[in-house]
């Protein structure tokens, strides 16, 4: 019964936090999905890999949160350093993906109007998994709330169950991202997505470095 209550609470928290979650993951997910292949099936595969890795990130965090007792006990400085490291890694993966998308396109795009990324399927899924894991470790506000609540549960299993349910609640909000599969992939869409990816990577990189150096983003 208690497990059911915990599950229900986490699911509700996940559902309520969905907009914040898609807001946090959107900058990573939208351009990377747009550089992938068009079509519902391809996007489902990518999104599944992304979400599976995100779940892994959540469960890892559940272990850490439970072990630490309370997430609140995590001092601001290490938290800032962790965020900084995650941001820098996220930026590096995004930049690599941006350049990889260019290489993937080089052959098929040369003559054709349509971009056909038919090779390196596994490389795309690996990048999706890496990005999913890193965004899973992103300390967005609902995630911190879930971490604190999970840390208050009685056992590690309960903490993991809490995060799994939270994950399910938030994942429902990701379904609309599949509609990006309907957008025709041509040279313009691919170039825009790659450029956007690089810009977002630069933002994460600069913020990550600032955090690692101990600078607050808006310390007026």
């Amino acid at each position, binding site marked *: 019964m208690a497990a059911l209550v915990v599950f229900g609470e986490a699911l509700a928290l996940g559902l309520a936090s969905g907009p914040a979650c898609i807001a946090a993951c959107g900058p990573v997910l939208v351009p990377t999905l747009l550089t992938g292949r068009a079509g519902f099936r391809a996007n489902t595969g990518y999104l599944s890999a992304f979400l599976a890795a995100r779940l892994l990130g959540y469960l890892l965090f559940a272990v850490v949160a439970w072990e630490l007792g309370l997430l609140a006990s995590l001092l601001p400085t290490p938290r800032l350093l962790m965020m900084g490291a995650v941001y820098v890694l996220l930026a590096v993966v995004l930049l690599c993906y941006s350049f990889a998308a260019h290489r993937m396109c080089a052959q098929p795009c040369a003559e054709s109007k349509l971009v056909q990324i038919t090779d390196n399927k596994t490389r795309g899924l690996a990048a999706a998994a890496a990005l999913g894991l890193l965004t899973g470790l992103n300390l967005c506000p609902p995630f911190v709330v879930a971490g604190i609540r999970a840390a208050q549960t009685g056992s590690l299993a309960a903490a993991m169950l809490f995060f799994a349910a939270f994950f399910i609640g938030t994942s429902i909000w990701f379904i609309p991202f599949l509609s990006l599969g309907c957008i025709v992939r041509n040279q313009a869409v691919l170039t825009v997505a790659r*450029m956007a990816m*690089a*810009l977002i990577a630069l933002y994460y990189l600069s913020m990550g470095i600032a955090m690692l150096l101990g600078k607050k983003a808006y310390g007026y």
Partner: protein
Amino acid sequence: MATDVRTLPLARPAPRGILWSLFLTLPILIWSLLMMVFRPGASAEPLSRISGVITALFMTALFFMMMRTHNTYRWRRIFFVSLGILFPIGFIHNLYVMRGSMGIPIEEMIAGRTPFCFMPIPLLILPAALTRTLVFPGSIAGGIAAMVGIWLALTLVMGKGWCSYACFFGGIEEGVAAIPARARIRKLDSRWRYLPWAVLLAMVLLSLALFEPAYCMWLCPFKAVSEYVAARSTIGLIQNVIFVLLFAGLVIALPFLTKKRTQCAWFCPFGAFQSIFNKISIFEVKIDKDHCKPCLLCQNACPNLSLSKESVARGETLLSCMKCGACVDVCPRQAIVWHIKGTQIAWKPERARLMFLYSAWALAVMFGGTIIAQGIATILHVFV
């Protein structure tokens, strides 16, 4: 390959008669006086009155020249550059009077007193739709609603014409681009045309993630000539350095070297957003394929890189066309025409031009004219 204009038959129409041009200008004269001088609530202060009269006559004179010479771009550019120069003069002066600095302190932002320009409009849509939150430190009644209303009205009529008749930033680079006689850099990679869309996509997504207008916080070059976040930290200082560098590069150096509006063509996310509205505006610029050579003089003349070889072959401009009229004016065969959607291409292009110019200029007087009048009033106030 561009062809020398001298090898093509020149078929420029003769100037209109003065009386007929005056007659066509009369509605704009009345409208300008109504907007600038006799508007209810207009300041009764003599300097404001004088600046209003000067602006009304200025706008009317430019419209008269458009009518008389059949040339749109040259006279519009005078208005647009004046707008670009006078906006910062009036705005910065106002900031110094109000708070003694161009830097907006965080306390003002928290109080919701940040001046709102049109740039963040596309950044506000997703957060507002998903969370019913306005991610801008301003107030709806204190400027946001008015600016959005003006933008919507102008956009529905002009589409991306906003960028040629209303934007109070673009005039600076258009003025800089007009200075050199020839472009130093001529070969421009067409892929950069996609960058505004990428900036738009990245900034919309980041604004949603960060719950702040990311473009205004990090990338707007025009913060250098308007208000910016007061630099009270290293990050704040970095933001301001970015603003100044982008302004120096995209608004001063590159327009001077390329004779193009590089910030608009290669960077501005609002311009990319505005391009979408070209789909719903009834006015457009078309190329009559029967008359087109193609010499590609239009492509060279376009300040926004909105024409390509392929688009000319298709008989149309790219989606990013700002309707400035440069290509129409430069075409020696008059193959490029103003066009109303739903009509045949060759159907009375001058009538289409007049219909567009009346609506665009009326709105330009109402919006840009007010800003010009404020700038003139500031100069008069300081020097007289």
